[in-house]
C-alpha cells in the first residue's frame, strides 16, 4: 500500500467517515472551550448540536451497501452507518438527559461532555472496525473515558468504588482481548476480519480456537454476560444515572456490533454458536433471577441489562443472517427502553444525594404526582418485559425467531420463561409508582422529591423514547432496516 494511492483515496475515506471526524473535532473544541470558560451552560448544547448533525450525516447512508474505508480498517455505509447512527443517537439522548441532571447535582463540568464525545468516537471505531487492532483502539478509547465517567461523583465513595472496579476489571478483560488478538494473528497471519475465514486452515487448530475464545471472553466482559458480569451492578449503581443509561446502551451497542462483525467473518461453526447459546442461557436466567431480589432501582436495572444482553446473545447464537440483524435491531429497541428508564430515574433522584441508594419503596405514588414519569415509565417497563404492542416485543421476536429457525427451541423456551420472571420485577416498579399507598412520613418524602417541574429537555426525551417504542411496536416493517445488512449465509453482503 503505497503512500500515493493512500492520498488519492483519503478524500473519499474522510467523506465516508465524516461523522467520526466531526465528533473528534467537536471533542477537541469542547476541551478548549471548557478550559477558557469553565461550566459554560451553552457547551452541552453545542455538544448536543454536534451529535445531532453527526447523526443526520449517518442516517441517510444506512440504506447504502457496506464497504470499507482507510485501507479496510473500518466499515462504512450500511451496517456501519446503522451502528454509528444508533450510538450517536443514544449519546444525543443521554446528553440531553444529562444537561438538567448534572446541573442540578452540580457535576456539570465541561470535561464530562468532552469525555462523552471521545467515548462516542471510540464506540464508533469499535462498532465499525474491520481490523483487530482498530477494534482494540476503539475499545480502549471508549473504556478509558467510561472509567472516568463512572467515578464522576468524587465525593461519593460508591462512585469511587464504581470507577476503580470498572477500571480493574476492564483492564483484566483487555488482557484477554489482547491475548486473543495475538493468538488469532498467529493462527491466521491477518488482522483483517474479512480475511480470517479464508486464512483458517484445517478447521483452525488450537491456536485459532484459543484466540477466538479469548476474544469472545473480552467481548462478553464488555456486554456484561454472565459469568463476566460482576462489575456491572456496582458500576451502574455508582455512576451518575444519566451516564449509566449512556454506558448501558451506547457502549453495549458498540460492543455487540463489533462482536457481530467478528462473527459474520469467521467460519460458521457449531462450537462457538453452542458456547454462545450456553452463555446466553446462563445470562438470561441469572440476570433475571438476580434482578428479582434487588430493592435498589439502579441495581435492578443493571441486572435487567445483563438479562437483555442474554436475549441478544440468543440471536447471535443462531449464527444466521436473521440472527445477526435481529441482534442489531434488538439493540435499537433496547437503547430506547433503557435510556428512557434511566431518564425517569434520573429525575426522581432530584435531590442529587439519594441517587445511589434510592430504594424502590421510597417512590410510592410517584405516578399520581408526576403522571408523565408514571406513564412513560409504564411503557418502558412493559416494553422491557416484552409486551406487545410495544417495541420490546418485536425486539424479542427479532432475536428469538432466528434461534427457533436454527433449531434451538430449548433456548427460546428458557428465554421466554426468564422473561416471564422479569415481569415480576418490572411490574413491581409500576406497582410502586401507581398502586402503593405511602405512609405519611414516606409520603412527605415523596412529596418533597416530586416538588419540582420535570425539565423540558428530559420530558422531551422521555416522550420521544416512549412514542418511538409504540411506533416500532406497531410497525414491524422497521425490522427491514437491519435485515438487509447480511446475506443469507450470515456473512456481510459485500463479501464474495
Amino acid at each position, binding site marked *: 500500500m503505497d503512500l500515493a494511492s493512500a492520498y488519492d483515496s483519503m478524500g473519499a475515506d474522510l467523506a465516508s467517515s465524516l461523522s467520526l471526524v466531526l465528533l473528534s473535532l467537536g471533542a477537541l473544541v469542547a476541551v478548549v472551550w471548557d478550559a477558557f470558560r469553565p461550566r459554560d451552560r451553552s457547551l452541552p448544547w453545542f455538544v448536543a448540536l454536534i451529535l445531532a448533525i453527526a447523526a443526520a450525516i449517518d442516517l441517510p447512508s444506512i440504506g447504502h451497501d457496506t464497504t470499507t474505508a482507510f485501507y479496510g480498517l473500518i466499515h462504512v455505509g450500511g451496517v456501519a452507518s446503522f451502528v454509528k447512527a444508533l450510538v450517536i443517537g443514544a449519546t444525543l439522548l443521554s446528553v440531553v438527559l444529562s444537561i438538567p441532571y448534572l446541573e442540578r447535582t452540580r457535576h456539570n463540568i465541561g470535561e464530562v461532555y468532552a469525555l462523552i464525545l471521545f467515548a462516542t468516537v471510540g464506540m464508533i471505531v469499535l462498532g465499525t472496525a474491520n481490523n483487530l487492532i482498530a477494534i482494540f483502539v476503539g475499545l480502549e478509547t471508549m473504556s478509558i473515558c467510561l472509567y472516568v465517567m463512572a467515578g464522576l461523583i468524587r465525593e461519593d465513595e460508591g462512585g469511587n468504588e464504581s470507577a476503580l472496579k470498572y477500571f480493574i476489571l476492564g483492564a483484566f478483560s483487555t488482557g484477554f482481548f489482547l491475548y486473543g488478538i495475538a493468538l488469532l494473528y498467529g493462527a491466521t497471519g491477518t488482522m483483517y476480519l474479512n480475511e480470517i475465514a479464508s486464512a483458517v486452515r484445517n478447521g483452525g487448530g488450537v491456536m485459532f480456537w484459543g484466540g477466538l475464545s479469548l476474544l469472545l471472553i473480552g467481548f462478553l466482559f464488555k456486554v456484561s454476560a454472565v459469568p463476566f458480569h460482576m462489575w456491572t451492578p456496582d458500576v451502574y449503581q455508582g455512576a451518575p444515572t444519566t451516564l449509566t443509561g449512556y454506558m448501558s446502551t451506547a457502549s453495549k451497542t458498540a460492543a455487540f456490533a463489533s462482536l457481530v462483525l467478528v462473527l459474520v467473518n469467521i467460519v460458521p461453526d457449531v462450537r462457538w454458536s453452542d458456547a454462545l447459546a450456553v452463555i446466553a442461557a446462563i445470562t438470561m436466567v441469572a440476570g433475571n433471577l438476580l434482578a428479582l431480589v434487588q430493592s435498589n432501582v439502579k441495581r435492578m436495572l443493571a441486572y435487567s441489562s445483563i438479562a437483555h444482553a442474554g436475549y441478544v446473545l440468543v440471536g447471535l447464537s443462531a449464527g444466521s443472517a436473521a440472527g445477526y440483524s435481529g441482534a442489531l435491531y434488538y439493540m435499537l429497541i433496547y437503547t430506547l427502553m433503557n435510556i428512557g428508564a434511566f431518564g425517569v430515574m434520573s429525575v426522581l433522584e432530584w435531590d442529587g444525594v439519594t441517587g445511589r441508594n434510592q430504594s424502590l419503596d421510597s417512590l410510592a405514588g410517584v405516578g*399520581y404526582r408526576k403522571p408523565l414519569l408514571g406513564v412513560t415509565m409504564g411503557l418502558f417497563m*412493559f416494553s422491557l418485559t*416484552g*409486551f*406487545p*404492542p410495544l417495541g420490546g*416485543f418485536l425486539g424479542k*421476536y427479532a432475536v*428469538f*425467531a432466528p434461534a*427457533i*429457525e436454527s433449531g434451538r*427451541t430449548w433456548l*427460546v*423456551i428458557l428465554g*421466554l*420463561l426468564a*422473561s*416471564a420472571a422479569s*415481569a*415480576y420485577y418490572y*411490574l413491581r416498579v*409500576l*406497582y410502586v409508582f*401507581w*398502586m*402503593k399507598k405511602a405512609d405519611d412520613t414516606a409520603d412527605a418524602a415523596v412529596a418533597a422529591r416530586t416538588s419540582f417541574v420535570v425539565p423540558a429537555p428530559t420530558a422531551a426525551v422521555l416522550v420521544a423514547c416512549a412514542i418511538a417504542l409504540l411506533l416500532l411496536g406497531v410497525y*414491524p*416493517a422497521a*425490522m*427491514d432496516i437491519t*435485515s438487509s445488512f447480511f446475506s443469507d449465509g450470515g456473512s456481510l453482503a459485500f463479501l464474495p
Partner: protein
Amino acid sequence: MSVSHVTSLVIFLPLLGAVVTLLLRSDAAIKWTALVSTTATFLLSIVLFSGFDSSISTATAPQLVDQFRWFSSVDVKYFVGIDGLNVLLVLLTTLLGPIVVLSSWNYISHSIRGYYALILILQTGVTGVFCSFDVILFYVFFELTLIPMYFVIGIWGGENRIYAAVKFVLYTLVGSLLLLAAILYLGYHAGDAVNAGVFTTDWYKLLAYGVPVGAQGWLFFLFALAFAIKVPLFPFHTWLPDAHVQAPTGGSVILAGVLLKMGTYGLVRFCLPFFPVAAQEYAMLFGVLAVIGIVYGALVSRVQPDAKKLVAYSSVSHLGFVVLGIFAFNSEAMQGAVIQMVNHGLSTGALFLILGMLYERRHTRLMSDYGGIARSVPVLSFFMVFSVLASAGLPGLNGFVGEFLILIGAFKSSAVGHPLLIGIATTGVILAAVYLLWMVYRVFFGPLTRDENREMKDLNLRELVLIAPLAVLMFVMGFAPNYFLKQTEPATTFLLETVSAKRAAALDAEEKKMVRGEDDNSESLSETVSLD
C-alpha cells in the same frame, strides 16, 4: 346496511374512545365518551352481525375480512374476520362494553380517566383476540388484554388487590410466553412445508399444514397450557378467585364475561385443528381435569361466606363444562361448548353486576351481612333470582341449552364418553343449583334482621338499563336456542371435519413412515455425516 372495514372498526373504535378520554378533563365528559364509544361499537357490531351469513362455510376464508401484510419480510398479517365460531363472542364483548361502563358510573370514584381508558383498551384487546386469523396477531391482542387488567385490578381493586393483580399477570404470562415459543416453532415449520419457506402464522396456512405426529404432543401442550390457565382449568385456577374478588365490578364482569372465553376459544380455534392427533390422544386427560373442575368448583363454591368468591368459583365449575364439550369431538358437544361460552358470559356477568350493586349499597360481600333483602329491594332480587336460575341451568333459560348439549354430546363421545365421568359431570348441574340457591336464600330471603338492609334502595334507572338487556337475552337464548345454534353450526362442523381428516392423514403418514423405518434411519445417518 353494510359498512366497509366493519370488523376493524368494531375492534378499534373503543381504542379511539380511549385516546379521546385521555385528552378530556371533566369526569362527566370522560364517562359519557366511554359510554358513547362502547354503545357505538355495539351498534356497529349489530351491523356486523347483519352482514354475517351463517350459511357460508369458513373453510377457505372468514367473512367481513380485513387484511394486509403486517411484517414485511415474513408472512405475518393483520388478518381479522368473522365466522361462526367468533361471531357470538364478538357480540357478547360489544354488548358488555356499555354495560361495564354503566356499572362503573358511580362505583369508580378516583382516577376516573385512567379507568375508562383502560377498560376501553381492554375491549379492543378482547375483540381483537376473537377476530384474529393470524396467530401472531392473536398473540398480540391476547397480551394486550393483560396490561389494562393488571391496572384495573391493581388500582381500583379491593384489599388484596396487588397480590391478585400480580398473580393474574404472572400466571397468564408464563402460559402465553410458552405459547409464543410454540407459535414461532410452528410458523417456521409450516412455512417450510406449505408456504415456500417463508415463516407464516396465517390461520389457514397453519391449518393446511399437518404437524408431524412426533411434534404434536409438546406443541399441543404449550398451546393448551396457555389456554388452560386462562380458562382456567383445574389445577391452574387459583388465580381466578383472587382476581375476581379483588377486581372492581366492571373488571369482574369483563373477566368472567369475556376474558375467560379467550381460553376456551383458543382451545377450539387453535389446539384442536392444529394438533388433532395429540388433542384426541389427551382428550381424556382434559375431560377428567374438566370434570374435576366442575365438581371441585361447585363444592368450593358451596362453602364460601363471600358471595363474590362463590360466583368466582362457580366460573371454574361452569367452564369445566365448556372444556368437556370441546374435547368430546362431536358436533352436539362442540356447539354446546360454543353456546355455553356466551351463556356463561351473560349469566355470570349479570351475577357479578348485581353483587356489585349490593356492594355499592352496603360495602360488604359477606352473605351473613345480608338476609331477607328481597323485601327491601324486590326488583334487584328479581333479577338476581332470574340470573341464578339461568346460571344453574333451569330449562327454558339459556344455561340449560349449553349444558344439556355438552352432556349429551360428551356421553356419546368416543373420546371422553366414559359413563362414570359423565355421570360425575352431571352432578355439577345439581350442585350448581344447590350452591346458587343457597346463596339466594341467605342473601335475599329469610328474616330481614338488619336496619341497614331495611333501608337499601332498589334499582335506579341506570342499573335497570344495564341489567335488563342481559336478562332479556338469557330468556331469548333459552327460549329460541336454535337461532343462535344456527349461527355457529357451519363453523363447528367444518372444524370437526377438519380435525378428523387431518388426524387420519397424520396417522396415515406416521404409519407409512414406520414401514419405511429402515430407509429413514440410513437417510438420517447420511445426513449427519454430510453435516460434519
